[in-house]
Structures are given as C-alpha cells and as structure tokens.
C-alpha cells in the first residue's frame, strides 16, 4: 500500500459522504492502511458532516417504490401555477401537462390517478423539496442541464416537452425575424437563463439591443402591452400562453427564431434507479402509445390482445414488462388511461384547440419530424 491512493480515496470520500471507510480495491488491512482510513474518516467527519446530514434523509428512503406503496399516495412536486402545465381548476383539482405525468405514475404504481399529493413548488424550493424527500417526483417544467443532473444529483428521466426561447413583437412593428431587431428594447425576466441566452444571441448576430429588466411574467405582460418595450422574450410556450391572454392576440406575432434549447422533463433523486425506471418507462409508455396508435378510445379493446406484439407487451397481455419494473401487468394501460397517449395529453392541455394553442413542432413524434422518441418495449 502506498500513499498515492490517499488522494483519490479522499476525494471519493468527501464527495460521496456516505462512502467513508470503504476499502480501496486491492488494499489489504495493514496497520498503516487502517491508520489512513482513520485519518480519512476523521477528515470526512469534519468536511462531510453537512453532506452526511443531507444524504441521511435520502439514504433512509432508498426504496421509493416501497415508500409510495406503503403511503398509498405519490408525492408529486408541481409548479405553483403555469398555464397549461399545472394549475388547480375551479373545483380544486390539479390539471395540466405536467400534472398528467404525476397522475400517470400514480395510476401505474398505485392503480389510482387521484392517489397523488400535489406539492406546489416555486423555482426556489423545487430542488430542495426533491432532495429532502418531500416529493418522490418533480414534474415541474424543469430544464435538463448538466449542473442540475450532476451537481444537484438528480436523474432526469426523459424530456416531455422541448421548449426554447423565442420572441414576441406587435404586428404593427412589421418585422418577421429576430435578426431585424437591431436597437430594439427587449422586456426580459432578470436572473434567468433567458437573460444570458439573449445576450449571446445578439452578440452572435452583431446587433444591439436595450434590455428592460422585469421581475415576473405578469409584470412583463403589463409592460409589453403598455409599450415599455418593443419585444418580449421568454420560453416559446410561455409566450404562446401570454399572447393567448391578450385582448387581441392577433395583433402580436411570435418570431420564428428559437435561440436556446430548453428540454423540460420530470426528475427524481439520484440513487434509486428502480424508481427512476418506473417514471421513465411511464413517460415512454405514453409516447410509445402514440406511436403505436393506442388511444384512450381503443385502450380497452387493445388490452384484450392484438396482432402487434409490442402493443401486447406494453398493455400487459404478453411478456412480463410490469413484473420487471416491480409492478403488475396492466401498469402501462392504467397510465395511458389517465389522459390518453402523449398526443392526447398534449392536445388536451396545451395543443392547438386550447387557448394556449401550441403546435407540436419539436414535440412531434420522431416519425413526424419531431424529437419525441421512446426506446422500444422489449
């Protein structure tokens, strides 16, 4: 045993917190080795005390599936209100695009789409709510980024909506492209990635702009309508929802440029892959259902068995997909029964026939030129 191993061991120990005192592969228990471990342990106790305290909560609830089943309710983190994605309706029932994911998972795991405790989370509280175990799943239009995945220790189980930053301008301005915005005043929410994206875009195109900093989206609506700025920029879905609320939406246009990637998806904690698999394949089941033509209308009929083996595998009349996930055979059928397949969920909550009126665009199936794609059920 030489001292060279101490460096890496220490790093592992401090980063992980829970791994302290584990043997380096190949090491034998010499007295020197034990002394090293002791030193490492003491240091870890000092350096990693907070980490340990933080992870203790997570480690104790490693079997999320068992916890959820024992509780009989899924704790699902949603937004404190985003048009089309999550909001309580007049009877106090949560509905929306993200909410449907929560309900689908609850239906798959517990057999009841209403066995969900919706926990509203703000942009500030969402990650701690998930990390501390207050929620089992966060379905809150959260952009998948490297630092959130790696540094905050979450697992993004997929993408349920591909968003991107866009521009809205009054039709009277007569512009058709964001590149014509030289010298424009732009309403922008401060402290968001959109602010940075905007600066990048204008610099790359060598044109100038004047930012009008805004705190909230509601304020931005008022400012934009009052003419305080020429254009308003935020996520394209947010722009569409904002425009839908105007008295005369036809007087405003969304410019074709999308200047950033915002893949939004549900996420779970690191460290419980079985639970992550369940959420991932629930989302995939909705997507595959659209691809294979399973809808809420023909679900019961197809569940009885069809000629298509993949449909049979998803709906549980063939194979043992549910058993592999630790669920029963009809798990995916129940998830699809909540709001139909991905296309139906999209159309009901944010699609072209809703006031928000989003077209599928990037969120069309891969077979229709979009990015929505599910690995095979096999």
């Amino acid at each position, binding site marked *: 045993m030489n001292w060279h191993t101490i460096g890496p061991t220490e790093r592992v120990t401090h980063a992980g917190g829970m791994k302290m005192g584990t043997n380096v592969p190949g090491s034998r228990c010499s007295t020197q080795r034990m002394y090293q471990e002791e030193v490492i342990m003491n240091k870890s106790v000092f350096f990693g005390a907070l980490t340990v305290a933080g992870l*203790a*909560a997570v480690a104790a609830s490693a079997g999320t599936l068992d916890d959820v089943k024992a509780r009989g309710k899924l704790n699902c983190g949603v937004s*404190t209100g985003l048009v089309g994605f999550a909001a309580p309706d007049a009877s106090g029932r949560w509905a929306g695009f993200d909410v449907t994911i929560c309900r689908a998972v609850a239906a798959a795991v517990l057999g009841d789409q209403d066995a969900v405790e919706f926990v509203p989370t703000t942009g500030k509280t969402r990650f701690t709510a998930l990390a501390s175990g207050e929620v089992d799943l966060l379905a809150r239009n959260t952009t998948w980024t490297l630092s959130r995945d790696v540094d905050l220790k979450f697992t993004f189980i997929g993408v349920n909506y591909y968003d991107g930053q866009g521009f809205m301008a009054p039709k009277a301005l007569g512009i058709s492209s964001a590149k014509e915005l030289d010298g424009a005043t732009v309403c922008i929410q401060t402290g968001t990635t959109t602010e940075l994206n905007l600066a990048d875009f204008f610099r790359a195109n060598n044109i100038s702009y004047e930012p009008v900093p805004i705190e909230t989206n509601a304020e931005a609506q008022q400012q934009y309508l009052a003419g305080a700025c020429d254009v308003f920029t935020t996520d394209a879905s947010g722009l569409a929802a904002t425009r839908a609320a105007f008295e005369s939406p036809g007087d405003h246009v969304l410019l074709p440029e999308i200047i950033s990637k915002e893949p939004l998806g549900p996420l779970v904690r690191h460290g419980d892959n079985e639970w992550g698999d369940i959420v991932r394949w629930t989302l995939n089941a909705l997507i595959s259902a659209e691809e294979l033509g399973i809808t809420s209308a023909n679900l019961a009929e197809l569940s009885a068995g069809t000629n298509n083996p993949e449909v049979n595998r998803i709906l549980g009349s063939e194979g043992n997909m549910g058993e592999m996930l630790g669920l029963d055979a009809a798990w995916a059928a129940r998830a699809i029964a909540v709001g139909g397949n991905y296309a139906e969920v999209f159309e009901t909550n944010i699609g072209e026939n809703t006031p928000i009126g989003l077209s599928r665009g990037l969120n069309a199936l891969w077979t229709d030129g979009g990015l929505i794609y599910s690995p095979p059920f096999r």
Partner: protein
Amino acid sequence: MANTEISFVRTEMLQEQAPPALNVGLVGWVRGNLFPDVLSGILTVVALYLIYSLLSGLLPWVFGGVWNAGSLSECREIIAAAHGEGAEAACWAVIHERFWQLMYGFYPDHLYWRPNLALVLLFAAIAPVLFEGAPRKMFWITAASPFIIPWLLWGGTVWVPIMAAMGFVIGYFVYKLVAQVSSNLLGLIAGPLALVIWWLFLSSYASSGLASVIPLELEPVASRKFGGFMLAILLGVTGISMSFPIGIVLALGRQSNLVIIKALCVGFIEFIRGVPLITLLFVAQVMLSYFLPAGTDFDIILRVMIMITLFASAYMAEVIRGGLAALPTGQYEGADSLGLDYWQAQRLIIMPQALKISIPGIVSTFIGLFKDTTLVSIISLSDPIGWVKFIQANAEWNGIVWELYGFVAFVFFLFCFGMSRYSMYLERKLKTGH
C-alpha cells in the same frame, strides 16, 4: 339733580345675533377649511380635480364590472357588448367563481363548517379579552379555544387536544406538590418540566390508548389542504396571541438583573431582529427537512407558525420595553415601598401602565405581522397570494391581474383597519390624563 332717566349703563341684555352668514353652516365650513386664502383655495381645486379624475376612472370600472362569466375572454365579450368596444370594466366573475378557494384553499368543501365554527369560537374567545362589557364567564371559552380550534381545523381524535390540555393540569399539580414539599422556585421548574415531559413522551400514548377505547373523532384534514384567507388568519392569530405573552416575558427578561437571563433575552431579540422573516421561513421550509431525521413528520404549518411567533415576539419585546422605559422610576419605587414583590409589582403597577403606553406600537406590530403572513406564498404555502398565482395559471383566467390582487388587498384592508380602529377605542377607554 339726580336724573335717573339718563342711564350710562345698559340695563337690559342685547339680543343674541345670528353669526355672519358667511361663517356658519356649509358655507362657513367650506370657507374655513377649503378656501381660507388664495393658496389653499388653489390647492383645494387641484386636489378636488385629482380626486375626481381618480374616482371617475375607478368607480365605473369597479361598479360596471361583470359578475357572471366563465373566463376572462367571456368577460371581455360581455363588457364589450354592454359598454361598447374598448371599454374597461372589472371582471369580478373570477372572484365569484373562485371565492371559496380564496377563502379556504383546498379545504374540503363539505367541511367548511369547521373553519367557520372555529372563527365564531375565536370571536367568542377574544371578546372577554378585548371588551370589558363581555361576561367574565366567557374566559372559559378563551381557555378552551386553543385546544378546540386546532381540533376543529385539523380533525382527528378528540383525545389529542384533551390530553394536551391535561398537560397543564398535570403541570399545575406537580408545581403545587413540589412547592409544598420544597421551595416555590423548585416548583416553578418542576411544573413546566412535567408539562414538557407529558407532551413529548406520554400524551401520545394516552390519547391513542383512549382513542382505541372511545373512538370519537372528526375527519382529519392534512395541513396541505389549508389555504386562502383561512391560512392567513390562522397564522396571524396564532402569531399575535402567542407573541404577546412571549414578548412581555422577553421584555422583562431584558430588563432583568440576572445576567444569564438578560443575556439570553438580548441575544434572542437581537438575533431574530437581525434576520429577515423570509430567511426564517426558508429555514422552516427547507433547512429543517434536511436536518431532521428522515420520516419525521413535523407539520409545515406548525413550523411556519413557530417561526412567525418567534419573529413577532422579538419585535413585541422591543415595543413593550419602550413602554417600560417610558415609566418614571417613581412607579417602580412606589411599588417597592408598598412592599409588593416583583410579580405583584409587575402585575398591578408596572405592566398596566407600560402596556397602555405601548398600545399603538403593539397594534402596528400585529398589523405588520398579519400582512407578513403573505410571505409564506414564497415557500409555496397556498395563502391568498399563492391562490392568486394558481388562478392566473388557469387558461380561463390567464392575464387577469387587478381584480384578484385588488380583492386580496381589500380583504386585508378590512382586517387591518378593524385592528387599527380597535386600538383607538382602547386608547380612548384607557385614557386617564386630563
């Protein structure tokens, strides 16, 4: 010589004359108050114009509003049909549709009678405290309500509040017993200790045991269902009623001659006053869930209540200390010369005067506290502001702003104005100066 016919002194009184017409009645008042000189006259005209232009815009908007519609766009159609294209009017339909949610949040609607009853009970409980005219027997309601009201709101077995109340009985008997056997001081320590031990370790066994023998319970409602003004009032009332006694104790502790007690009180007050409330709320929401052992079910509303109470107590202590400092030393010396001990002096002489002086400060702390409860929307509790965001996130009501915030502001104004009027009544009642 004497000619009595010529008199130099008037023998009968002159008749009272009416004052000049320009100085009485409406004209006099207007002249005296609105147009006493040229500058004031100009300012009056300008002010009247400003008030007119404000009201002429606001009143038609408020009273021309639409009360029945299913969505903002429907509202706009109705307004356009009634007042012509481009007319502005309020869309109160959103308040009409979502009124109960703004009041009770997610609380199950078949159980609305419980918060309502709790509110009635609350008024019955505070009546004897606030008004001298109320029957003294109502103090029994005051004593019982801290146990009954939470039971009504959260539901569950009736034995939990009863056993919690038992704690005080037990604490009292332990105090009596120890005080008889040994000294009064030991009793003062042993009594509360017994109370805490009972609450922490024994009462849950007792209540669950009794509940299994005599199951008597209300349908439980989870804290997460609480919302709207019910939550704001619950947090406000708890904060106000708990922070007042704690504030008095802290203020006295800060004036104490006992070094450790004084240091603790000063440290607590300065620490809490040096930290913004929102930080404390984040600690309650976020930090505690990291540091408490996993699976600990420490109710979020209870955590927030504790934080708000601690915060308000520190401010209350300083307000009351101001009242104590305003008392002349003669009052303390007078109490001493009468042979009163410390607590008697505080109860009979010092506190009644100090509190009277502090009334405006106390009430403005209360009002501030009640308004501060809206901060909980930032830690995603669904108070009225939280519900405004929820409602705006519905496709039907997206884009509605003034009506919702205006309504919330109006209800808050009613409560705060009521508190302010009460404090003025109390000041008039307690006024002893001449």
